[in-house]
């Protein structure tokens, strides 16, 4: 226990002439514990793991893994570690058993030991019933467990897992975590890379990366201790919480603030509000109470605080009458079948003007299918969808002109530069002449694009890409905004900045539909629908959903607790 398995000294790696992917990173990974390699997408996590496997060499600096130098002795390292790359490294056209056999042969697991090892791993991963199934036909969670089993065949001393939690439902994620934690009891060292800060919180120790630089190394509690006593929950808010958040963020000494269900979570620079009172801002019933700090609070504090609450984009938007008319986005019994597979079944909800509605669920649950039916990209098998009163089947073009769409991974044209992307999307949305020039100039000013107008979209850092995608989606001042996984993988500051804009637009009367698998992000919504296996298994405000699963053992459940509990109930109901 506690022995250093990996030693990183001043590791630097560059690709081309861009800023280094890793910049003088030093640190260590110990045996017998889970070390979190934490950071947003593009922080350098995958590069660092590949350097540890010896599949890539550092430009400068030194990496020692289990006593071997990666430059000189990559083969010895590869014989002693287990590595699960991001897509699990499975052969989809081989069965579970054939994948295991292949990796057992490659790793040189003696034949005599196999029956026992296979049995143990299949039991451990609960895959025994599926040994004959092709890996490509497994669910995300099962693939990931099989990937882990393949990495564990010849009990490694060090296990490197590259984003094992991505795209997996929370239940499988918890199962996997429990398995990995078990391994550490045998002295195995585990590196778990993640962009989710709640996963980071559960690690024994973390290496926190941002833009290739190591920001912090130590236990999560050491990191959160920097905000101890400075994190508060502002509850009992009267009126709409989004303008109140904007107001609070404008007060002196407020480092960070986010919406959390009906309340607002705040990080201050002092143990109590300085020079302002909760009641003055949030109404007579408002109370401000200290709450336990979380990893994200500390991360944001470390990065110098959130971006503030003012959205220039929202300031420039024309207010719409929030009381006018009924629902802006409606789904009635939306169903989509592909052959005999039902991707979405009987989805019904309606979103009044000026609200944020979230579709929450793991990858493959049917969120994106529902979403695509509502913006006219997929024809529903049954049911109907309406946007701003227009039927998506009959008046597709009118409906589409009322909505702005921001696709997963920001579908920008990578080979066009920023200005060209803006001009293209303005054209697509039917803007022309002076109107087009005006809107583009406004977006350029609001999002500060002037200095990067000539850069290719594909070369932009993730945060800027996301800004550009948002700018393109709101160019034509849509009534409804469709956001598909808008902040997946971006750093918390960029995420806050994004939500500040969205919150501001919502206050101006824009209606928002968002899909997310981020439990935290669900808290920003007015109402959410939990989508699981193509069906909506619960619908309500975040606080309602959380309250519905509160129990004496867990009086204050998180969104993830609620999700897991509701999925379990749904499974039980189905089994009955």
């Amino acid at each position, binding site marked *: 226990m506690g022995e250093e398995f990996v030693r990183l000294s001043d590791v630097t790696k560059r*690709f081309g002439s861009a800023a280094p992917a890793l910049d003088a990173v030093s640190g260590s990974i110990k045996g017998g514990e889970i070390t979190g390699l934490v950071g947003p997408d593009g922080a350098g996590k995958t590069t660092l793991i*590949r350097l540890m496997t*010896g599949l*890539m060499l550092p430009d400068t600096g030194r990496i020692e893994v289990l006593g071997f130098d990666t430059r000189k002795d990559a*083969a010895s390292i590869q014989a002693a570690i287990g590595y699960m790359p*991001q897509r699990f490294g499975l052969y989809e056209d081989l069965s579970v058993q*054939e994948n295991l056999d292949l990796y057992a042969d*490659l790793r*040189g697991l003696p034949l005599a030991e196999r029956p026992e090892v296979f049995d143990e791993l299949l039991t451990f991963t609960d895959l025994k019933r599926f040994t004959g199934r092709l890996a490509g036909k497994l669910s995300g969670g099962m693939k990931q467990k099989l990937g882990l089993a393949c990495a564990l065949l010849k009990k490694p001393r060090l296990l490197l897992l590259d984003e094992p939690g991505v795209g997996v439902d929370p239940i499988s994620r918890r199962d996997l975590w429990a398995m990995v934690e078990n391994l550490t009891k045998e002295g195995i060292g585990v590196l778990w890379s993640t962009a989710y800060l709640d996963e980071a919180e559960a690690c024994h120790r973390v290496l926190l990366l941002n833009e290739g630089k190591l920001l912090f190394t130590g236990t999560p509690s050491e990191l959160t201790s920097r905000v101890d006593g400075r994190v508060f929950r502002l509850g009992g808010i009267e009126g709409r919480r989004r303008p109140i958040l904007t107001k609070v963020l404008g007060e002196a000494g407020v480092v960070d603030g986010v919406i959390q269900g009906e309340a607002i979570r705040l990080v201050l620079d002092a143990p109590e509000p300085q020079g302002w009172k909760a009641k003055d801002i949030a109404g007579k019933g408002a109370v401000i109470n200290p709450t336990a700090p979380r990893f994200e609070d500390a991360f944001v504090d470390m990065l110098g605080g959130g971006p503030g609450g003012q959205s220039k984009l929202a300031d420039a938007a024309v207010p719409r009458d929030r009381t006018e008319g009924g629902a802006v986005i409606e789904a009635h019994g939306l169903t989509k079948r592909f052959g005999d597979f039902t991707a979405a079944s009987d989805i019904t909800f309606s979103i009044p003007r000026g609200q944020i509605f979230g579709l929450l669920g793991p990858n493959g649950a049917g969120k994106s299918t529902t979403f695509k039916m509502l913006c006219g990209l997929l024809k529903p098998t049954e049911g109907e969808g309406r946007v701003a009163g227009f039927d998506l089947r009959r008046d597709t073009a009118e409906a589409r002109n009322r909505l702005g769409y921001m696709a997963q991974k920001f579908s920008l044209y990578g080979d066009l530069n920023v200005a060209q992307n803006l001009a293209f999307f303005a054209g697509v949305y039917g803007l022309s002449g002076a109107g087009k020039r005006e809107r583009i100039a406004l977006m350029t000013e609001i999002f500060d694009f002037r200095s990067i107008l000539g850069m290719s979209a594909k070369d932009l850092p993730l945060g800027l890409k996301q800004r550009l995608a948002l700018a393109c989606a709101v160019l034509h001042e849509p009534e409804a905004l469709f956001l598909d996984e808008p902040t997946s993988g971006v750093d918390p500051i960029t995420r806050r900045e994004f939500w500040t804009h969205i919150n501001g637009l919502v206050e101006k009367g824009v209606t928002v539909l968002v899909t997310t698998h981020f439990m935290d992000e669900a808290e920003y919504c007015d109402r959410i629908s939990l989508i699981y296996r193509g069906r909506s298994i619960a619908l309500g405000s975040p606080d309602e959903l959380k309250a519905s699963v509160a129990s004496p053992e867990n009086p204050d459940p998180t969104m993830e607790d609620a999700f897991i509990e509701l999925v379990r109930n749904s499974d039980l109901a189905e089994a009955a």
Partner: protein
Amino acid sequence: MSTEALVGTKETAPPTGRARRFTALVRKESLQVIRDPSSILIAFVLPLILLVIFGYGVSLDATRTRIGLVIENATPIAQDLAASFQASRYFEVATGRDRREFEEGLILGRVRGIVVIPTNFTDVGAAGSSPQIQVIVDGSDPNTANFVQNYAQGVVGTWMAQRAAEIAMRPPPISVEQRFWFNPELASRNFLVPGSIAIVMTLVGTLLTSLVVAREWERGTMEAMMATPVTATELLAGKILPYFILGLASMSLCVLIAVFIFGVPFRGSVLALYALSASFLMPALGQGLLISAATKNQFLASQLALLSAFLPAFLLSGFLFEINSMPWIIRIVTTIVPARYLIPSLQSVFVAGDIWPMFLRSIAVMLTIGVVLFILAARSTRKRIG
């Protein structure tokens, strides 16, 4: 117990581990080939399509061509000549009285030429001098035009010789009789089909191989494998063997179809066929692996394979175009195209028989190119990413 003691030592001798890793890779690859519809498509369906195209569709032979035959004056002698045209196996003849009847047909391409036996034909012919007939062809299609012209002259020549013989009651003084060795029917199918087998092996050896390696990079399985104790050589060898066998299987299928369905003769030995094919697969596989080492993307790999292997096998191998009639610089380029060594030898195996001195020379050259490509591929395949 004794087994436990054995296991306890856990020291697998290096060769055993190596052999086991190799067999595991070969088994994996074979399973993937069997289960992947696209490999079956490239190895068995595409060859079938190619063979059908070259067996039936593309033919460089003269078959019956439609012409219009105008007999302006139906004298017995003109009708005798007309009968010769009608009896010709090269022409399908429609007869008429006036050339205007066929003019539109020629313009529309319904007939390929008009042969006119003029009014004064009888007299001239009887005088013993060269009889005059008129041949009208469509100059926008020079090949067919030449063909119609030459064969019409041929028909007339033969007819004249016969007439002369009949009149003189003795055989014509001299006649040239052509004889083609080895392919007496002069069926182009007999040399196109063996050539297309070379194309098929190029597809399997180079295109399919480069695609499957690129696919492993795209799906991230290559990365997972590289992080195991497997060596780069084992990775390469594990790819070569299954696709080598697949290439030979695909070739065998083609030969069976060529011989039994298209009736292409097979005059050489099976040994020669396999020796030549196996030697050709070496450079083909080497090139596939080299391409996949250079590119990690299926699209790029397929483009490179098509440009650097498939097209040269088609155009620069002597398959469709005579190498001797190419400009000298192109002729130099053809010397490194493996297919140019395979195709003549393979054609011999089919239509002529075994000519071992020629085969051995071809095999030696193909193996040499293969070794060079393998060395290059092995050097550029390292256990490294990026």
